[in-house]
């Protein structure tokens, strides 16, 4: 009973904090409202006994929101005194669309014929969830993860303004790297 109450309480917190993202008037508040929303969801996942997934949701989302707040504030040059930001753009069209999508999804969740439970939950629900989601494709998913990381690295390398020729000279023979930014490893 208590678990149910906490679960529903967290659900309300998650939705309200999500709404707050579009109501508050600074990037810092918007980012951390979103973080609060995700923390509430992470705690709900914890209540579902998906301990690893739940804690990971909290970890990832807090870090992500910290980084987002920093970059948003940096690019927008914000400070707490400049509280005039509007998180909503094109509200006339966006509002009905988002309300409609919310109602559609909520209706789906409420009216779908959920199957009744067969058997009992397994010993380790996290392992069961992983096997259910990935099954025999676990190896493929692992490889895809590495490929994605490699893609990010190559993307950054290709997009970087300075190349190794700028750093090591045209014949790549320069011993001391010429970088505009001072670094910590011997230069």
């Amino acid at each position, binding site marked *: 009973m208590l678990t149910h109450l906490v679960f529903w309480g967290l659900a309300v917190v998650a939705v309200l904090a999500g709404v707050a993202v579009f109501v508050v008037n600074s990037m810092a508040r918007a980012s951390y409202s979103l973080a609060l929303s995700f923390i509430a969801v992470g705690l709900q996942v914890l209540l579902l006994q998906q301990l*690893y997934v739940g804690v990971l949701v909290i970890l990832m989302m807090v870090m992500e929101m910290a980084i987002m707040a920093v970059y948003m504030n940096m690019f927008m040059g914000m400070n*707490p005194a400049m509280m005039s930001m509007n998180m909503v753009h094109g509200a006339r069209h966006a509002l009905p669309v988002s309300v409609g999508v919310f109602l559609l999804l909520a209706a789906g969740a409420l009216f779908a014929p959920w199957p009744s439970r067969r058997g009992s939950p397994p010993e380790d629900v996290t392992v069961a969830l992983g096997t259910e989601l990935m099954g025999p494709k676990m190896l493929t998913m692992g490889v895809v993860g590495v490929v994605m990381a490699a893609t990010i690295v190559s993307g950054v390398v290709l997009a970087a303004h300075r190349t190794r020729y700028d750093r090591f000279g045209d014949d790549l023979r320069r011993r001391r790297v010429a970088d505009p930014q001072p670094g910590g490893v011997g230069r």
Partner: protein
Amino acid sequence: MAEVPAAVSGGWAPVAAGLLGTLAVAAALFDGALAERAAGARLGTGRPVGEVARLLRQRRRTTVAADRLLWRIGGAGLLGMALMIVTVVPLGRWTLFDLAVGVVWVNALDVLAWAFVWLTGWGANSAYTMVGGYRFLAHGLAYELPLMFALVAPAVAASSLRVGEVAAAQQGLWFVVWMPVAFVVYCLGVVAIAVWGPFSPALGRDLAGGVTAELSGVDRLLFLAGRYALLAAGAAFAVPMFLGGGAGPLLPAWAWVLVKATVLLAVLVWLRRRVPALRPDVFMEVGWLVLLPAVLLQDLLVAVIVIGG
């Protein structure tokens, strides 16, 4: 293999908080004594006591257009983080919160430092505090990943994310002996989340106090107490992760946990005056080109030993 600690009722939470508070106060007194000695006094621990008394009756300073909500959350958050960390640290046979993923729990909490320190810098609406907040994040970009991978090593060696089982897995040989790189990087991470010693440029004197520049009264007291509490909680968490948990001769397990935590805490406090401050831009490269590969190699070594042995 030693017995895995059992969870006690939540009614013991104040005791855990009290122990953490005692360690934090001891750390502050020790730091005060070191400061007195550096200033030339023979013996003295009065400095932190006087500072607490001063801050308790100091009137709050206000700044124009501060984001007060986020400012207060950031300032009080560090103390909350430390309290949440010690819930999963077993004290001998007892633990408050026997979470199956305790190691990840601590990892999720140490990430909160990013939010709290930066928010304290942001909330005051002052240029110096803001610059201090960004300095901390620049440090964070360099220390966070090595810290995460340092926590991976003991978990892999114990094949468990439960803190009690990690402690029980090192009965023969403490993890600090055969994964020293992970231990050093972990300690560096603890010092970093406490904005301590080499990571104090975020509170630098060249920034009029950086993140803390506009903090006054109780707010300042909470922030400073949070830093000491984080040092203490980090030292306490190192005991089950690297220092053999409650293992030791003569004394009972709980006493050994406290002794080890106190010794490590004293070393961390003492290091403050022995290690130079790390410039964020310089440390960025050290973190990515030295610490991260080193700790990844450590993880690989541990994994190979665990699979091979």
